[in-house]
């Protein structure tokens, strides 16, 4: 887009890419190398930018001395279940908004999408007694249900904008053959919609996987604790700041979601930015 043949242009481009790139990637680099440094090298006032010695001691301690394995399993169960529920709900709702016309459709849709203006923290104040009265406080199902709050609106919108692009002719042709609407949806529309559906699943998964606020408040027992509060309580208290362990644990919990997103990033960017660009 820009002409970079002049010297000034080259310079501006080079300096910008270095500065923003440093800001974006240095913290990640710092996390990675800190997790491999031995304590003697880690706790130096003047730090080393390339580790002198590489050690796996922090990773060893993360898996043997902390409960990280347990937190990972808990997060996997809760995030997987809530993402599955969210995806199923959003798939049908998105298709309904995109391909059917009924009274109240437009207002309901806008209302659902506007849910971003309901602060998560405020909802939590009333979710807490609601879950308590159903005996769901400090249980996985309670947390799983609460996670619908985060991702459902955007998930519905992402799938809605995808389904509007599915040609009506495809559906009408199948209808003319006598197939029922649900059958058409399950056997014709869904199979060609795998990428956006996976994207929405991953998006919902990410919200729950990354959450701190809800799991910290709605889960009390240690055996059900997820990674967000688990990491915080293990590594960031006044008396014991084990930074090597904190960085190693950070890398372990980030890796799965980062890798998944790198693979699906193309669909994902399309889904999230859909509609905003035109």
């Amino acid at each position: 887009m820009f002409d970079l043949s002049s010297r000034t242009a080259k310079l501006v481009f080079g300096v910008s890419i270095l500065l923003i790139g440093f800001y974006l990637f240095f913290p990640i680099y710092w996390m990675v190398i800190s997790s491999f440094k031995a304590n003697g090298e880690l706790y130096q006032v003047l730090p080393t930018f390339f580790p002198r010695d590489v050690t796996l001691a922090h990773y060893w301690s993360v898996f043997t001395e902390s409960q990280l394995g347990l937190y990972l399993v808990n997060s996997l169960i809760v995030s997987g279940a809530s993402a599955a529920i969210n995806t199923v709900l959003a798939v049908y709702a998105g298709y309904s908004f995109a391909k059917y016309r009924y009274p109240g459709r437009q207002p309901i849709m806008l209302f659902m999408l506007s849910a971003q203006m309901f602060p998560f923290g405020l909802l939590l104040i009333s979710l807490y007694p609601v879950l308590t009265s159903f005996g769901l406080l400090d249980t996985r199902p309670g947390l799983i249900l609460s996670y619908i709050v985060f991702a459902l609106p955007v998930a519905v919108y992402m799938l809605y904008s995808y389904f509007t692009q599915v040609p009506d002719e495809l559906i009408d042709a199948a209808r003319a053959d006598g197939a029922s609407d649900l059958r058409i949806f399950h056997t014709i529309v869904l199979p060609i919609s795998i990428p956006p559906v996976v994207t929405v699943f991953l998006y919902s998964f990410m919200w729950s996987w990354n959450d701190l606020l809800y799991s910290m408040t709605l889960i009390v027992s240690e055996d059900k604790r997820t990674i967000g509060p688990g990491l915080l309580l293990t590594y960031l208290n006044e008396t014991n700041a084990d930074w090597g362990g904190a960085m190693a644990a950070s890398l372990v919990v980030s890796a799965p979601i980062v890798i998944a997103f790198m693979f699906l990033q193309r669909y994902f960017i399309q889904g999230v930015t859909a509609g905003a660009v035109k």
Partner: protein
Amino acid sequence: MSDVTLASGRLNYPVSPHARRGGLHAVQRRVGILMLAPAAIAFAIVILYPFFQALGLSLFEDTLQSIEPTFIGLANFKAILADPETWNSFGITVIYVGGATIGTLVLGLGWALILNQPFRGRKALRALTIMPWVVPSTVSAFIWAWIFNSRFGVINGIYLELGLIDVPKAWLSTPEGALIAVILTRIWRSIPLFMAFFLAGLQNVDQEQIDAARVDGAGNWAILRDHLLPHLRPVLIVVVVLGVIGGLQDFDTIYALTGGGPVSATSVLSISVYRKAFEQWDIGMASAMGVLWVATLLPPAYFYLRLLIKKGN
């Protein structure tokens, strides 16, 4: 029967298996509503009901001491508006959201313009850029807390090496340092998303128009000002609105990084409401503060909805 086919517009096949009972239109409507129902019910239970419940609670006195919540009208609001802490929290929220949104806007746009240029390694760089956005909020707080660490943090290390300070500084223990740290962390986390929006917007720039302008002697700056920025205006609005909503909603990273402190230097509205509700267990006051929080979210939410409606038509 012909009425049915006419009413449904493009569905112009006269003989449908549904047409006999109640008409095709009615059946389809029922299917549509049925598909929406599960999501609508879930939405009502976990979002709508708690929301209105919280609005109602703001009119009650409901603390650890009170046995039953008692209706006290607008007394909570009076107390909150008279409390300097509230205004402090508002001010911090404005600085936090404003600073983070402007910072992300500039850097996200810059990064998108850079990644829009053809160069080797561009694809890899694009893929890597998503990282700060997808790492868990606790992790991003850890990373930045370690970078700003009072004794062994890398910022202290660099400043010492450069001779800018003589002894390590406890950045996160000073009000300004803590606020700068949470804003920097927020910007870092949001650049990837802003960049994705801008990059998508840059995809459909009319290259011929740019080439023509260049033939007319326009330099890089003129291209940016007269062609790219006007073209990106709709994206810019969306990004600002989403950025403001996201910033107002943000809780996790601030809580993990500073806990709202030192004292209440980084206590944005989300943190203040949480502290009131789940540390002091003053539900009535927390809800009242939450209602004010909703009020701050209404303008960006309104813009967001207007954009969606415009797009829908």
